């Protein structure tokens, strides 16, 4: 598989006058070229409208020196001053819940071992899953019994400098298997101990938790939870280890304590606090999962904000990634007079044997004080981050039976499969099988590109393509802006268009969209399965969202019981409909089914002849089949589809003006809607599998129109944009940007 030219920006949205930093990694030396384009359509598939971009003059358009920039995935904790210094005797104590003990490579729990010069000491899980002590250059000391995955253990490593011994110990909590709960092993080191062990002040690397040092980098990343790690500056016996291991507060004040970390403090942030008072505070790197159940979670409280001492565990993964941390290659200062739109920094490199190409999308929004257009396209960037670099073909065991097709991998899918370290999406499983609950934009996102699979970003360019074909003026704004500015971002627009799949919403975003329509705004929902999951943006770190797949819904993985509350904000994660905010309240329709074999068409319903809806169907015959064509499944109603339901919040006055009902057995009813398993859940048998086109008026002259289908936008360009899907969309948008109020 060929290497790729890779790049990302420090933000997806920028206003005129702001600076965007572009970070590039090139597969070959020499130079690469950059230019700026305004993206009209990213769909270069054989049946699509074709790739369309307009070159924009820019000072960034030139050659740059090419260089390879590495990615260092794997989460751990590092300490500002190098952490506790190990001199003389010491004991490491921690509660651990390993999740991949049989990884086949060492995984460091804690210590100051530096693999670059093989000095220092680490309490480790060895390549065979056994608790081990890596002490300088000396042979590994390990216990005989491999650790069981997903079991809590009290583990310790005691180094007695005066006796010249090192002792490893583990006790599995809640032991139910054969044999003893405790394993222990000791070794006497030949003098001079400190020299053999190469421990003591000034040797080893910086102290780390969940990884060890490898010179300037880190290695041996641990997979699993760690709770209440402590370093005591003397060699403890088993009785003392048990006492301090089971009582974290006692460890913090123990005689000779060097550090005792409480991961239950500051859960929302990245700081790690040394509760011993010795000042060995640190920070998490690459966002391991916080607000995780600790060894002492007793099920009495599910909300970590109310029992942080039971959520003092952090779950580390060797494939966690927050920020690639690449150096900036060049910056783009967004010109003051640049019109709002979707732009891309387009990069190219002619290598020795291959030609490389890369795009970095940047949405240019209007700046403060700039006049807004009547119409805005709200780019669902939060949903882009949720899907960023997803690896469903290899993460999911049910992808084909869900999709109804054999796995078909794009070049980008294949690249991500063959190259670990690019970070995962909230649809994926970590290498240890646990679900991914954070996803970041600060990395190359291969599925948020023109010329990529028609899903999310690239499918949304069918909308920009249509807007350009219709010669409609529009601004482009993003979810990232909506999260920052709330309703203020929307209030000056007459009409807001969604993307094809605006699935992930924070409370602030949802309140803003609801508030917009309640204040007379007009919303055109050009997609399906929108406003579905509750997420959170990090309150401090840019470009990262959190999602807990709690309780129910169409989930790529399932949050562990007791881990439903988001670490970033303390809010309950999961479906908005479980929180009395079903999508039907916002847009009249909510997720009802999905299938990916083929898309269907709509037929008008009697409500479409209501005078209130007449404007929608101008130029459409009364028996005309709507959208029996399109790029996405061959129809305008498909992939994921929504249904109106007054029980879930569709306003009583809403008109279901058209519906699609002809779906195959590959379409399945969403699981949160049936409370008991049965067989009538597919397109052949389930009447809930339908796609409802909905219109309703809102207070103060506003209105909502919902197509309720992801495939809709893929039908807009059919027959040179002269078709009834395009006509209906144009009828609605033109009426919605007309200031004349709707009568409620």
């Amino acid at each position, binding site marked *: 598989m060929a290497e790729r030219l890779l790049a990302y920006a420090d933000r997806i949205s920028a206003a005129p006058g702001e600076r965007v930093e572009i970070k590039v990694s090139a597969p070959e030396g020499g130079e690469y070229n950059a230019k700026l384009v305004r993206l009209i359509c990213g769909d270069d598939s054989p049946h699509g409208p074709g790739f369309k971009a307009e070159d924009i003059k820019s000072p960034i358009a030139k050659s740059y020196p090419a260089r390879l920039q590495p990615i260092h995935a794997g989460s751990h904790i590092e300490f500002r001053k190098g952490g506790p210094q190990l001199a003389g005797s010491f004991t490491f104590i921690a509660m651990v819940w390993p999740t991949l003990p049989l990884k086949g490579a060492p995984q460091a729990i804690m210590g100051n071992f530096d693999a670059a010069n093989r000095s220092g000491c680490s309490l480790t899980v060895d390549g065979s899953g056994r608790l081990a002590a890596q002490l300088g250059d000396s042979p590994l000391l390990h216990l005989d019994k491999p650790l069981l995955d997903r079991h809590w253990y009290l583990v310790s490593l005691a180094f007695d400098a005066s006796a010249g011994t090192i002792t490893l110990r583990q006790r599995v909590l809640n032991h139910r298997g054969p044999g003893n709960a405790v394993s222990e092993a000791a070794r006497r080191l030949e003098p001079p101990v400190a020299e053999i062990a190469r421990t003591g002040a000034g040797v080893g690397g910086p102290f780390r938790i969940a990884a060890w040092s490898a010179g300037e980098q880190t290695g041996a990343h641990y997979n699993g939870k760690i709770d209440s790690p402590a370093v005591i500056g003397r060699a403890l016996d088993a009785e003392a280890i048990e006492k301090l291991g089971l009582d974290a507060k006692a460890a913090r004040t123990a005689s000779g304590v060097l550090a005792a970390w409480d991961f239950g403090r500051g859960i929302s942030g990245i700081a790690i606090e040394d509760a011993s008072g010795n000042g060995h505070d640190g920070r998490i790197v690459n966002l391991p999962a916080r607000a995780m159940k600790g060894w002492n979670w007793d099920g009495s409280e599910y909300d970590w904000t109310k029992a942080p001492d039971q959520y003092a565990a952090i779950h580390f993964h060797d494939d966690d990634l927050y920020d690639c941390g690449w150096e900036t290659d060049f910056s783009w200062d967004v010109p003051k007079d640049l019109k709002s739109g979707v732009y891309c920094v387009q990069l190219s490199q002619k290598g020795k044997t291959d030609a490389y190409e890369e795009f970095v999308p940047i949405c240019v929004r209007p700046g403060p004080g700039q006049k807004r257009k009547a119409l805005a396209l709200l780019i669902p960037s939060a949903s882009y981050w949720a899907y960023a670099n997803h690896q469903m073909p290899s993460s999911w065991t049910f992808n084909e*039976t869900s999709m109804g097709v*054999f*796995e078909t991998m794009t070049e980008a899918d294949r690249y991500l499969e063959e190259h670990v370290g690019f970070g995962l999406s909230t649809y994926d499983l970590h290498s240890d099988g646990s679900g991914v609950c954070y996803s970041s934009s600060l990395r190359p996102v291969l599925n948020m590109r023109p010329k990529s699979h028609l899903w999310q970003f690239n499918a949304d360019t069918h909308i920009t393509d249509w807007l350009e074909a219709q010669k409609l003026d529009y601004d482009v704004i993003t979810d990232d802006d909506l999260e920052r500015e709330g309703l203020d971002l929307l209030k000056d627009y007459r009409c807001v268009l969604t993307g094809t799949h605006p699935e992930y919403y924070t409370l602030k975003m949802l309140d803003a969209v609801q508030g917009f329509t309640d204040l007379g705004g007009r919303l055109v929902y050009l997609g399906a399965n929108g406003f579905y999951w509750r997420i959170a943006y990090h309150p401090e770190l840019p470009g990262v969202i959190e999602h807990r797949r709690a309780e129910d819904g169409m989930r790529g993985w399932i949050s562990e019981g007791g881990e439903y509350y988001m670490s970033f904000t303390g809010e309950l994660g999961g479906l908005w409909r479980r929180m009395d905010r079903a999508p039907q309240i916002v847009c009249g329709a909510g997720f009802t089914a999905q299938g990916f074999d083929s898309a269907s068409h709509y037929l008008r319903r009697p409500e479409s002849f209501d005078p209130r809806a007449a404007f929608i169907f101008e130029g459409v015959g009364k028996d005309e089949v709507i959208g029996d064509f399109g790029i996405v499944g061959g129809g305008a109603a498909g992939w994921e589809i929504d249904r109106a339901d007054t029980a879930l919040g569709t306003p009583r006055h809403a008109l279901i003006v058209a519906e699609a009902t002809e779906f*195959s057995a590959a379409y399945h009813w969403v699981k949160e809607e049936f409370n008991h398993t049965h067989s009538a859940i597919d397109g052949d048998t389930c009447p809930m599998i339908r796609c409802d086109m909905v219109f309703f008026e809102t207070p103060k002259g506003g209105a909502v129109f919902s197509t309720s289908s992801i495939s809709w936008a893929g039908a807009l360009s059919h027959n040179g944009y002269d078709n009834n899907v395009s006509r209906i969309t144009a009828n609605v948008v033109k009426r919605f940007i007309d200031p004349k109020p709707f009568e409620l």
Partner: protein
Amino acid sequence: MYRIDPARADLAREYKARPSGPHSAELQKLLLILRWGSARGKTVILSSKSESQWRLAKFGPKRGTPMQEYGPTYKSATEASWACFRARWLETTGHDCPVE
């Protein structure tokens, strides 16, 4: 539990004629069996060059290992789907698909 009869050429012919469906109830069952579980270890389809070329392939043993392409290059998704169907038939039943 539905068992695939490897002699059922009629079902293979039905898929070949219309890979994207709709499918008869029995072909739907057969396809669910062919598609059940992780795709790692099974034949999948690779698309390349803006969906103008397709090949069959298999995943490596874990993420971070190369995929192995095999067989000819196909010029349509339909041809590739049929080739994948035949490969899965063999992988699942131990018998060659009775339809070429």
